[in-house]
């Protein structure tokens, strides 16, 4: 067995092997830009009204009823804008599927001792697509179950016992976080161990989580704290920047989105690291992806 690679080294692979990072960013940025431009065309005529700018800048909905009853001719919600609005959920589904494919290559890339070739990256995506999709769907089901189990009783008791409802809601949120981590770990466990059976991958993930709960907690907790901080910075800067400063807004927001994506990928790389080195398994090679 080779000497253990420190966890930090896995985290560094996110920056050292930026392909996954860039692809993941472009995967959402390009369709988002296109659809944002298309849908925003529908509100272009409203940009003639100073009150519209004031409403967006002050984030006040007071003038919304006036805006909705405004007669701005045929431009309001152009067919193109309506089409773009319809395209948003469709694009969301396609992006999710591509994302699942991308994760196979991404995790394999972080797991391999050397950077994967394009061919190996694509092959890993293909190989793990079905397993990861099944895991993701299981995760969605699990989250609905857990969310429902927490939300329903919370709503039922909210009016009479609000404190109890908030406690149930908080517990539900924690449980949902745990489930999401489990699914994430199951993807990593499947890839590291070559396990293509969904339930066995979940079993392995559960064992690994129990065994390495301390570093995992640090990894997940640290990434959540960082994501929270980045979210707050984003909110603060968005509120600070005038609406008309579109270029600085665009640059800052995209930089923050890249940073958020990097944090998430680092967490996944760290999970790979935990599973490879601390479970006593050898690093996987190019042929194993």
């Amino acid at each position, binding site marked *: 067995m080779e000497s253990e690679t420190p966890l930090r080294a896995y985290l560094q692979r996110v920056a050292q092997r930026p392909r996954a990072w860039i692809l993941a960013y472009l995967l959402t940025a390009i369709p988002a830009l296109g659809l944002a431009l298309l849908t925003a065309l529908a509100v272009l005529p409203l940009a003639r009204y100073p009150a519209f700018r004031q409403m967006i800048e002050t984030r006040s909905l007071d003038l919304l009823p006036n805006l909705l009853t405004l007669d701005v001719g045929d431009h309001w919600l152009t067919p193109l804008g309506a089409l773009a609005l319809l395209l948003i959920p469709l694009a969301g589904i396609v992006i999710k599927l591509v994302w699942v494919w991308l994760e196979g290559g991404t995790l394999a890339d972080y797991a391999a001792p050397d950077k994967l070739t394009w061919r190996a990256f694509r092959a890993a995506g293909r190989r793990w697509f079905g397993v990861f999709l099944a895991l993701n769907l299981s995760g969605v089901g699990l989250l609905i179950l857990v969310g429902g189990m927490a939300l329903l009783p919370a709503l039922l008791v909210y009016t009479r016992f609000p404190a109890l409802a908030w406690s149930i809601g908080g517990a539900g949120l924690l449980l949902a976080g745990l489930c999401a981590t489990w699914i994430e770990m199951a993807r990593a466990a499947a890839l590291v161990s070559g396990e293509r059976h969904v339930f066995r991958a979940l079993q392995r993930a559960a064992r690994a989580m129990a065994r390495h709960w301390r570093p995992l907690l640090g990894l997940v907790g640290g990434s959540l704290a960082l994501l929270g901080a980045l979210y707050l910075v984003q909110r603060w800067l968005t509120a600070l920047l005038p609406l008309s400063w579109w270029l600085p*807004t665009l640059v800052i927001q995209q930089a923050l989105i890249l940073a958020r994506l990097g944090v998430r990928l680092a967490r996944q790389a760290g999970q790979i690291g935990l599973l490879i080195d601390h479970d006593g398994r050898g690093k996987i090679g190019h042929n194993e992806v």
Partner: protein
Amino acid sequence: MKKLRCVLVLVCWLSLLGTHTPAAGQAPVPPPDVASYDIAARYDPATHIITGQQTATYVNRTAAAIPTLVLHLYLNAFRSADTLWMRESGTQMRGYSYDPDAPGWIQIDHIALADGTALTVKALDADATLVEATLPQPVAPGEAVVVDIAFTAQLPRAFARTGWADGGDFMFGGQWFPKFGVWEEAARNAGAWNAHPFHANSEFYADFGRYDVALTLPQDWVVAATGTGEATVTPNADGTATHTFSAAHVIDFAWAASPKFRELTREMDGVAVRVFYYPQQRAMAQRALRATVGALPLYNAWYGTYGKGLYPQLSVVITPLDASGAGGMEYPTLFTVGALAGTTPPCVRFLEVETVHELAHQWFQAVVATNEAEEPWLDEGFTDYSTVRAMHALYAGALYDCGGWRFSYLGMGRMNYALFAETPMAGAAWDFDSMTYGIAAYAKPLLALTTVERTVGEAAMLCFMRAYFDRYAFAHPRAEDVRAVMTETLGADVAAWFFDALVYGDGALDARVTALNGAATVERQGDACIPTTVKVTRGWRGETESIPWPCDQATLTLGDNPRTVEVDPDHAIVLDQNLVNNGLRRAPDLATWLGIVARWMRALQDFFWGGAAW
């Protein structure tokens, strides 16, 4: 405009010199009592029945002799689904429905003069919500009549302002005893009772007086009640306790009781604020307390001291959830807040709005006691205007403040008003259906008064409000009295457009930019007009010019290739039905549009990531 505002403030403060504001340290002069009650009542939580004995005194302070006594028996409106109140309301109020199995009624078992002379009462309306007793001899000016009344009152299940709830563990006693109408001088030496059958939209109207009330309930019940003096509790041998309350210079007496009540207290500006709540409503109670102690000093500073310094305490009752129909009601030194308003997350402030609104009624109803039945806009309008001011001062105006987006209470008023903007504010409660009542009594006066404030300036407006409160504290002003104060403090022009177009007229207005090419055209629609200015921006450097737009011009044409035209750029005239069409640019503001694209793009990226973004 600035010059005008300075002149108005000066005129206003000069006009105040003649009023009777007590100097600092000087005790306020209490108003003379007119209608006073000494009541002993017993409440049975099992049957929800109150049995009472009251000695009621009415002092004739007019120049006209009083030949009869007229008494309100409000609870009879809930006797069946066929009463006038029920027919007008469709047997429901604010979304809460009448339970025919738990009706309400009140009957006078015996009525006699103090000397023992029995009186007979006859109903003045089909439902007996108003009864009359002929006196053996009229009450001469300056004299008083004293009657002893034995009565039985059945409280309904709470759905409209009063009743029981929570399986009998909660009761709210509002409009629960036989109560005098208001004897007014209709003409020289001729008087008449100002009292109407109980209508669905209608609230109340009463004279000031003293209340001494002894309430007997089971010993473990906690009671919150109108009061200005010390309250005492005396245990009785039969497992009950008698709570005594006294209240001076008040127009009504209401009380709430429950064995489950908890209490939060805080002193603010010399007033003991007490919040009564159910154990599970502690968070709501804290929110209500914060809003109350936040708004109390504001109203004190803006209008004058709470109760003119004669009310040392204030009780806030949070109703249980199934009694939310009794929430949002104002009584002297006590108001209720419906628990439903507190079930929202803290970023949705219905509870705070309700609290500061009901608190403002302590000024505009409890002390300036206008006729809520005949002129509901006078108390609800001034109160809602105060609500907007308090919400602005305490919560940056936001009724809704979640996820970075806001919607103000003023915005909600504008949304309601736009539905029937032409509704005049003047009118009795029964002149309106529930929708137009909300506009005439609440939304339109709120917007009209806010427009006045933004037109004349805050200092001048507060001077008017203070003069009005000061002059008519412990009195019953009518709309024309308000007009007189407004004319005196803010000028005849302001009073003219306020009263002629908005109070009595069906005036509405919408200023808009109708064309903007080489020249711009702005025009007014609607009968009302408030002078304003038009801001014109020209040239690539954006030179601006402010042009006055008087009321004698319905349209205005502005040449020289304007780039942007904005009517009333500061949105002072919140009565304008559509503020968005007040301004127009020649070309779309591309920088703003791209700013939206940038923000929208980021939101879409978050959406695409969904749960994977964490």
